[in-house]
């Protein structure tokens, strides 16, 4: 019953999402959205939601289902973006195919990382640390490799009148539908995995590796397959990001913050569940964007360094500082919220929102059964 109701819920949301671009400019949307969040600005927020849901779903395969905490997925994401972009710039390969090359390259790198890590039996925190070190190495290499633009990154060639094959669009709608399709595709793929032998094997590995081995689960091979698939999907996401932002640079992409943001949706929504990453992204991104719109609107224009250096009295300085904070300070409020949410979920509902809701529902059902 509950499953059926959930399916209806998801179908209605899906229908709404498919039609949203048609109404993004309408007055009705303008009436319910906070200031200015209509038209392409609104579509942009949804592109972010879909994209993060997709990336988080990619992470979910190794981090959620297989329970191998990767804190380095920004590396696969970044490498994917670079691979397709270089294929495009140097070999004229359309990003649509570059995307596949990117997925193949990151999938292979993921498999290599998994092969090495799991062959030597790295578990838990040690695997996590290897992924961090791997991401850091990737960032350093990109940062110093002249061929890929080093610290300046790569500005994708702008085409004023782009064709479909260039994977560039002058409006937001195409990106919106591509991101939506990627998210839906990732749900379909992971949903299929969850019902297949592979999915059950990954869940078994996450819960008890020895017990899994004993009943015939080839744990090492499954983990390697999981990280390869997860990395390939993340690489694909990298291509989309490159085409959407038209600018890739190591210090924005291959950093710890991005790795954490990738896992955040899944962990908050419910790691190891099919819809967890999606629910997580639908919570996180709106919260984050709303925070940015509401609190980081103007800014006083004063920089903190100028404030410190000014010859005001201490009391005046302090008041000016309060003004500075009230105008959003140095930014970062959305990320503060993310960090807070991550801790709150870990402490309050360790499985994530969806399993927590399922638990509530089960308890309520038991109570009604007990009463009748």
């Amino acid at each position, binding site marked *: 019953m509950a499953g059926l109701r959930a399916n209806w819920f998801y179908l209605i949301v899906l229908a709404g999402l498919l039609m949203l671009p048609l109404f993004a400019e309408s007055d009705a949307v303008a009436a319910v959205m906070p200031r200015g969040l209509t038209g392409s600005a609104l579509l942009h927020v949804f592109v972010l939601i879909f994209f993060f849901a997709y990336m988080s779903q990619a992470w979910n395969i190794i981090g959620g289902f297989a329970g191998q905490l990767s804190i380095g997925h920004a590396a696969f994401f970044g490498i994917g973006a670079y691979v397709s972009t270089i294929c495009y710039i140097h070999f004229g390969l359309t990003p649509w195919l570059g995307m596949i090359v990117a997925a193949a390259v990151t999938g292979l790198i993921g498999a290599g990382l998994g092969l090495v890590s799991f062959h*030597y039996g790295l578990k838990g925190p040690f695997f996590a640390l290897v992924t961090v070190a791997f991401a850091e190495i990737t960032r350093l290499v990109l940062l110093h490799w002249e061929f890929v633009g080093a610290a300046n990154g790569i500005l994708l060639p702008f085409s004023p009148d782009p064709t479909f094959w260039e994977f560039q669009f002058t409006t937001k709608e195409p990106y919106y539908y591509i991101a939506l399709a990627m998210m839906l595709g990732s749900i379909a793929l992971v949903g299929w995995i969850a019902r297949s032998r592979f999915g059950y094997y990954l869940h078994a590995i996450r819960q008890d590796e020895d017990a899994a081995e004993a009943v015939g689960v080839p744990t090492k091979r499954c983990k390697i397959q999981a990280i390869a698939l997860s990395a390939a999907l993340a690489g694909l996401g990298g291509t989309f990001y490159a085409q959407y932002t038209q600018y890739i640079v190591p210090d924005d992409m291959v950093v710890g913050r991005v790795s954490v943001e990738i896992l955040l949706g899944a962990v908050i929504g419910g790691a190891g569940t099919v819809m967890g990453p999606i629910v997580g992204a639908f919570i996180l991104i709106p919260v984050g964007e709303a925070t940015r719109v509401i609190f980081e609107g103007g800014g006083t224009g004063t920089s903190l360094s100028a404030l410190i250096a000014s010859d005001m009295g201490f009391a005046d300085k302090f008041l000016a500082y309060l003004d500075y904070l009230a105008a959003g*300070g*140095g930014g970062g409020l959305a990320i503060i919220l993310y960090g807070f949410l*991550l801790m709150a979920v870990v402490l309050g509902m360790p499985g994530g929102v969806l399993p927590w809701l399922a638990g509530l529902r089960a308890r309520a059902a038991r109570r009604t059964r007990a009463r009748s």
Partner: protein
Amino acid sequence: MSDVYLQALISGLMIGGVYALVAVGLTLIFGVMDIINFAHGEFLMFGMYGAFFASVLFGIDPYLSAVLALPLFFAIGWTVQGVLIRPVVGKSHAIQILLTLGLSLLMQALAQFLFSADFQSLKLDYGSATFDLGGARVSYTRLAAFLIAMGLCAALWVFLQRTDTGRALRACAEEHEGALAVGIDLRRMYKIAFGLGIACVAIAGIAMTPFFYVAPVVGPKFTLVAFVIVVLGGLGNIPGAVAGALIVGVVESVGALVMPSPSLKDLGVYLLFILVLLFRPQGLFGAKGS
């Protein structure tokens, strides 16, 4: 040995000393509580900001700040352990990692909100003074940081060996049930361990402010380097951490010489890290208990 290598060796040892204090804090927390603290570097960052603002706003010398920071950051660590970390002690490593990752994210963003993303650095009149050591230039502030860090590591070691509280902490690190059985208050030990660990890393940060920039993003690099060192030295092994830190400091500064670009110096450190994790996870000097 040519001058550049002597210079690299000395610089490496100096910064390695500071790393030692960072890593000792991390390994103490891990040893006693079995907690992997991914927010470690963020406490260093807050220590640095504290010293920076104390200096530019009130003219307090960073070395005085370092002294004041000991009780302050001990109290902060004590509180953070009591409020945030305690609920996840004994839970899965994944839960602990996610919690401390969340804390790290929050602290970085909080620093950005409060202090802006700008890089700040202190300009002290003694900041650039150096002296000559057999052909190598050594800056006084780096030497001071090295001596402060080594002194604190030694003090911590003596504290752990000679005092009742220290012995109780070591008993916790050896075995939790055993410690409980002989009547040690585990919760209090955890708070002390976390308080001490945080005080160590914050003071390490403060000792660097005379010559190192401050920004909300300085933390993660130190967290990772501390993990490298702790794994190298053997988890929970304090002398191992000091030795590991000096090795990492030297690998880094020699790496800056041999790599095509000095800012690639960390590459060697991370490669060393992965190799140690794969081939000698108990560390070069043995983990706790082994």
